């Protein structure tokens, strides 16, 4: 019963964080890493972090668009 509970708990978080858009999970890890790397380069951080998030969103939705088109 404990194992089943743990499995359901793990599955919930897997679906929640990764689910059918694993690219967002990976991009979030990249954003976190970049935030630490650029913490002393504020001007770069201010530009790079939102661009990475927007880029991921555009690519992810663009992929769906291309699939629908073909």
């Amino acid at each position: 019963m404990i194992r089943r509970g743990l499995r359901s708990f793990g599955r919930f978080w897997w679906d929640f964080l990764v689910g059918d858009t694993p690219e967002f999970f990976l991009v979030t890890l990249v954003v976190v890493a970049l935030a630490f790397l650029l913490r002393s380069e504020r001007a770069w951080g201010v530009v790079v972090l939102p661009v990475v998030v927007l880029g991921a969103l555009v690519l992810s939705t663009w992929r769906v668009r291309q699939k629908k088109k073909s």
Partner: protein
Amino acid sequence: MRTSDVVLILAVFGASLVEMVEALTLVVAAGATRGWRSALEGAASAALVLAVLIVAVGIPLIHYVPIDALRVAVGGLLLVLGMGWLRKAWLRSSGLKAMHDEDLIYEETVSSLRLEAPPKTSRDAVAFAIAFKGVFLEGTEVALIVVSLGASSHRLGLAAVSAAAAVVLVSLVGAFVARQLSSVPENALKSVVGVMLCSFGLFWVGEGAGLHWPGSDLFILVFVGVFSIATLIAGKALRVPVSA
């Protein structure tokens, strides 16, 4: 009131509104076909369980986890969640994904509930289960948003009150019109919440990592602006042209 408080209220209130409208559809379907008493008991029980979860998880997070680590973790969580919401909203507004249809979901739920044996007593397990499941599943995401936004800014009370206000509003309107709320502009709300979650997520990841944004809290508004403009452009740019 700080800028981050205003954005927090809007994000939590908007997210709760969207999720509770979806939950209300299932509660009304269960109530109308199987009896209101069990449906309302199911919905109230789920809301109570979620409230206990928020308190049980949120308070220890605030007291025992170092604030910077909490902000990076919560920011990451909000980013994943926010990008998911924005992606869906972009796909729906550009016609690449069907709009969420509350009327259709209501009809399907009612049809499947009518196939079940009619309730024998005033307490009906099926109505209770459908309403509980509807509120609990839709509410889990809200609980996560409340805990993460509330804990990272040490405003758990404010986040919980914002969510509760949305629940009360949806319940009152639902009770008043006695049906599901299909006319709520769900996709527009989803876009707004997605913008808020991405903005907050990015802000907290940066703050937690030690990258201090210019203007502090006010910089959240810059992110809100950037993601809003991108959302407006995406709806048009992603649209697939209909061939003649």
